[in-house]
């Protein structure tokens, strides 16, 4: 390169965007100037770091509210767009009026849950389906949302008081999730969701199953979910 390489040229070289003849000249210049070679290296390292940083988004599950925009109407062929939008907003309003105070606590999951709740409904074998076994009961007794390890096999999603004043906790684990409420006998399983198989495969759709459970929790709850202090206090009282 007869003149000093400009910053633009150095970046373009690192990106493979220089025309062939200038690329060759740049190679020569780099061979003669280690500092130049180092600069190119830094550009490439930055590119690698950035693409690595954003790459995980590609593997994330796309939120239903986005895919719904593109799948819901596929059988209806061409639909008036404004009407579709109106319908969607009406559904949102309805959904949000059903969760006056604590949409915030389970927001993203709930958005995903509207469709899935139906599936959960099928798998729900009805109330009084039994009580939590010792292992689950121990988790429900002791584990606080704020303190649990992200790697915990069974995670408590949130805790709340149901309309009858009992403490209930929504949980999710490899072997399925559900909602259990504490009564005099123990943790009564109120809801149980399947999806454990799905949850343990590569296709685990993070939050999809949890979303269904949270939607159910919302139906049952008398008010907002317990915050960290509320949970702690409830635990101290043995959830009664």
């Amino acid at each position, binding site marked *: 390169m007869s003149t000093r390489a400009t*910053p*633009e040229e150095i*970046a*373009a070289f690192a*990106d493979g*965007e220089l025309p062939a003849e200038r690329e060759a000249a740049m190679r020569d210049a780099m061979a003669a100037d280690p500092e130049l070679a180092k600069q190119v290296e*830094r*550009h490439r*390292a*930055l*590119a*690698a*770091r*950035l*693409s690595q*940083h*954003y*790459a995980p*988004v*590609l*593997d*994330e599950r*796309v*939120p239903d*509210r*986005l*895919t719904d*925009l*593109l*799948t819901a*109407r*596929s059988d209806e*062929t*061409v639909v008036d*767009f404004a009407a579709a*939008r109106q319908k969607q*907003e009406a559904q*949102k309003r309805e959904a*949000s009026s059903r969760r006056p105070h604590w*949409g*915030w*606590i*389970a*927001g*993203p999951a*709930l*958005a995903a849950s509207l469709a899935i709740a139906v599936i959960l409904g099928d798998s729900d074998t009805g109330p009084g389906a039994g009580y939590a076994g010792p292992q689950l009961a121990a988790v429900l007794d002791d584990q606080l*949302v*704020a*303190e649990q390890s*992200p790697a915990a096999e069974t995670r408590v*999603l*949130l805790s709340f008081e149901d309309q009858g004043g009992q403490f209930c906790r929504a949980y999710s684990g490899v072997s399925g999730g559900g909602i259990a409420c504490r009564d005099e006998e123990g943790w009564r399983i109120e809801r149980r969701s399947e999806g454990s198989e799905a949850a343990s495969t590569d296709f685990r759709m993070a*939050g999809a199953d949890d979303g269904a459970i949270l939607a159910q929790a919302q139906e049952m709850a008398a008010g907002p*979910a*317990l*915050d*960290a202090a509320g*949970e702690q206090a409830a635990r101290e009282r043995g959830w009664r």
Partner: protein
Amino acid sequence: MDETSAPVRLIPWKAETLNTAFETDLLALLPRLRRFAIGLSGNPSDGDDLCQMTIERALANRSRWEEGTRLDSWMYRIMRNIWIDEGRRTTRSLQTFVDEEAGVAIGGDGSQEAVVELGNVDRAMQSLPTDQREAVLLVMVEGYAYKEAAEIVGCPVGTLNSRLVRGRDALMQMLGDEA
């Protein structure tokens, strides 16, 4: 690198079928669109709002997309235009109806996934002016050639090149050599 524009060049077909192909192609693009949106806005909840607005606008304007041209570039252009427009109105957040839900990202009660933690890269990216940020994202993350990125942004290639260099220099300064 363009795996999405091909399927639309079909034998004459019913309109519905083409519409479905359009939607199918958009679905396939969603992960990449989200990546760009999250990069532009700096966090997943604003990014998904931006994605949603982009899809809605694309569906409403689908007749303006020319078959045979690249759908991905068209979508990126819509998205960055919305982002620029929104940015003029409100710099921080898109302020759409999902705000209440988005609140989970920073509210919550300590459950791990509820916490948005901006890493160094996110912070550094957010400190760039929008024109530099989009140039960096399009070329260095989305992998567009300078010319393609310039077309998406709607500026000359030279302009894109110099925005890119300014953005890179700033990032390298902020991130140091930890890369």
